[in-house]
């Protein structure tokens, strides 16, 4: 399963043609304590770069972007009651949504782990 990263500090783990999306460890550190996550509706079609949700810390709100184009096929309902999971396990149980990719080629435009590590220094 390939994991790719965006400049907005999101990750997408692709299994077949479905990608699971969340924020990186670096992103959760920068955001601080997450108190609310607004997720897209299942069935919604999104284009790469679209605003797909919002993550709010005590202090501020930040957009979540669709890292790739496709249809939202699942969202992490558990975040509604336990948004802090996005802090404690951002790359595991703190995932945001799953997206059925409409263009697998878009993955080539994202960073691999080594490139992402270079980005965050």
């Amino acid at each position: 399963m390939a994991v790719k990263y965006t400049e907005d500090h999101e990750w997408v783990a692709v299994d077949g043609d479905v990608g699971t999306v969340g924020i990186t460890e670096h992103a959760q550190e920068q955001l601080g304590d997450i108190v609310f996550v607004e997720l897209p509706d299942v069935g919604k079609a999104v284009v790469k770069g679209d605003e797909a949700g919002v993550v709010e810390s005590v202090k501020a709100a930040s957009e979540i972007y669709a890292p790739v184009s496709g249809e939202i096929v699942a969202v992490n309902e558990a975040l509604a009651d336990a948004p802090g999971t996005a802090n404690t396990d951002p790359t595991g149980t703190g995932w945001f949504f799953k997206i059925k990719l409409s263009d697998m080629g878009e993955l080539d435009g994202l960073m691999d782990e080594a490139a992402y590590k270079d980005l965050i220094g």
Partner: protein
Amino acid sequence: MTDATLKSTPLNALHRDLGAKMVPFAGYDMPVQFPLGVLGEHKHTRAKAGLFDVSHMGQVRVDGDRAARMLETLVPGDIAGLTAGRMRYTQFTDADGGILDDLMVTHGGDHLFVVVNAACKGQDIALMREAFGDTLTELADRALLALQGPMAVDVLAALAPQAADLTFMTGAAMDVAGQPCFVTRSGYTGEDGYEISVPADGADALARKLLEHADVEAIGLGARDSLRLEAGLCLYGHDIDTTTSPVEAALTWSIGKRRREEGGFPGAARIQKEIAEGTTRKRVGLRPEGRAPAREGTEIVDADGTPVGRVTSGGFGPSVEGPVAMGYVARDHAAIGTSLSLMVRGKPLPATVVKMPFVTPGYKR
């Protein structure tokens, strides 16, 4: 972090030693949070004791028999009525009755001790200098620490037993761990606690001494903001400014009876009229349903979707365990229990007008 134009407080090295995340605030390099994080710092302050560096704020001393009467020409608060050791919250008003800044004034026995906001201190000091001339001394060589929370009294009394004798909104000069300090039992969190004015060159040692106590954690500006919001306290430049009067801001309680009758402060005509006849809008507390916070600037609408006001401070209240906000709404919608909606990302989020503070204050009266 390398911005050479930023000023730093005497605790800058301590903040860095503690691993603070530093941000520019009101021209100062200040800690927004420590490794504990905003949520943890907020809850720690409500449960035990938090230490805040508020040295960026302006501290001023005014001497002379006329000091209180002269200050009354600038503020609507009853300053002449303060007895030795007592303190009061008031505002500098302008000729139109708008708020130039808010401040704390303590009767220090033979002087007045005034604390003003960092962002406004240049302007405030210029205003006071005009009234007071050289009886005014800017205490630029002093730092200001706030120790807030239910354990603050035990922590401070161990270093300065006299501190335990103070009640809410009183102050006195006292030695704290060998430093000549001016201590008030006051703060900006809704908790019991103290503000400690300490010589700048002794501030680092005093702060480290206070932090040695197992119940004390360093707290940044992030939690300072969420604590004061839950306590229903105004933040200048957000909840109050020159476009809001003290009456609209629901601060009429801070204007003494004699001052309401006599006037004699800038904007008195408007403020007296508003006290008598009411205002067209009022600052209220808002409790949004669900978990989504409504931030500053959010439009407030009534049941028909008609705009009736705007949120001036809003966020997540860690102790309330939900979103809290304050803002100005039209008079007809300001009653406690009124159902309104907050337009968050284009969608109406139901909210109710509620009494502030959002948490039960811990003040020791």
